[in-house]
């Protein structure tokens, strides 16, 4: 499976993260998104007329939507990540997969504006991002009342991976996560998953290393 990838893109990171969690090996084809704008060049535009990355190729299959890539990876290698045990759970997964586009359009665009100087109405983007974070926080609080730590279930699904990167990187676009305690707990739970990988701006949990054990007999 070949991923057209940019190391600083949260959407590309979703796919790298899902692949790592599902144990799928990707062949990475780096795209000079910045400063080269290679994603707007003829080779990639022919593959994806929308001019966006990531693009995932597997044989004849070409995917250009990151949510579809997450579902494809999970279906192939880790079906428990699909979260389709019940009708309610499957619907919640779809709900949050669609919702994740709002995070890209708001927090993602704010980040591109603040970090890589892309055009945009920064105040409007930050406002839309804040509204989306409040909705996510409320959703996670309701889930915790149901005894569930993740967006659609008591275990992580593709919906969590779809929403996590742009949320975790919100401070890059000058949107603080301080007001959202449940989002921070959820983010920590995702960072603590076996097989979790980081991206620039999303650090691993160093504190998960084993605690030093005092030697027996010491005072």
């Amino acid at each position, binding site marked *: 499976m070949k991923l057209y990838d940019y190391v600083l893109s949260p959407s590309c990171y979703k796919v790298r993260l899902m692949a790592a969690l599902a144990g799928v090996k990707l062949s990475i084809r780096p795209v000079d998104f910045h400063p080269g704008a290679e994603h707007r060049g003829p080779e990639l535009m022919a593959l994806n007329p929308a001019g966006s990355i990531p693009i995932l190729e597997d044989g004849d299959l070409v995917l250009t939507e990151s949510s579809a890539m997450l579902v494809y990876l999970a279906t192939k290698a880790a079906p428990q990540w699909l979260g389709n045990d019940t009708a309610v759970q499957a619907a919640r997964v779809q709900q949050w997969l669609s919702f994740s586009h709002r995070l890209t359009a708001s927090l993602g665009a704010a980040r591109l504006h603040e970090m890589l*100087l892309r055009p945009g109405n920064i105040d409007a983007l930050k406002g839309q991002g804040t509204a989306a974070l409040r909705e996510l926080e409320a959703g996670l609080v309701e889930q915790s009342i149901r005894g569930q730590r993740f967006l659609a279930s008591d275990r992580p699904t593709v919906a969590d991976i779809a929403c996590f990167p742009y949320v975790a990187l919100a401070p890059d676009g000058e949107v603080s996560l301080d007001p959202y305690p449940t989002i921070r707990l959820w983010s920590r739970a995702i960072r603590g998953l076996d097989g979790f990988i980081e991206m620039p701006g999303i650090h691993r949990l160093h504190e998960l290393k084993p605690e030093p054990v005092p030697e027996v007999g010491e005072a």
Partner: protein
Amino acid sequence: MTRNAMIDEWYPVGLASQLDAHGRGTALMGEPIEVRCGEDGTAKVTGGNGRVLPTCIRYGHVWSSLGDPKKPLFAIPEADQPGRRLVDVGVVRVRCSPLRAVENFLDIAHFPFVHTDILGSEPHTEVQNYKVEIREDEDEVWATQVKFYQPQAAKSAEGGITTEYMYRVPAPTCSILYKTCPPHPGEWDVITLFVQPLAEDLCDVWPWMALFDDETPMTDLIHFQQTIFVQDRSILENQIPRLLPLDPGMEIPTRADLTSVAYRRWLKRHGYTYGAQLVAQ
């Protein structure tokens, strides 16, 4: 008063490869400027009131100054050595003092914690003794004999090796890192951090490299350096206070911070205080 000494310095204001006749609006120390390609094909930079600013093109970038530069832009002789690949890494904006961006670049001790498994790793966190001096003739800060254990110093390297570095600060918002170069023993890879001060607590950072590496694709070289710098970005944006403290009563440095101490001393000596905090608050 705080602007005076730094106003005559050169600053990067854009990539030479992205110059166009349409122009790009940006800023230098609070003043809006415009950078464009003139009809004669050379770079033109104009200040807020339309006045023409000094301009030069060097090291992949357009450089300008709000004042009257007393000397040409600092030399990087290695940049003209044949066989090197010149890498335009591209701009990254950071909400931090331009001086803090340079100071972070000079620090080695954070490698294992921020650039984990790339530039450093736990438990190899020790910074061995190194030499720091302010070279009076060149009027530059230099750190030499810097050695650090790196888990993956190069793509070809199997396992960790100890890499040697030299750091150089030739201008208040520019730093050059020289790093041992495995394919060319005796030569140094050149990795720079050119910082454009937009405001005292906001900067555009333009990393640039001149490397001996015939194998790694250009995009991989760009992505490697962007990865490293964006790992630093979130740390830089959370440093308190926002301005770089020059008051020695503000912080307690350790031996590993010798370069930072010399850099701050040099800034203070020259009155390079745009982006600095002079008195602890």
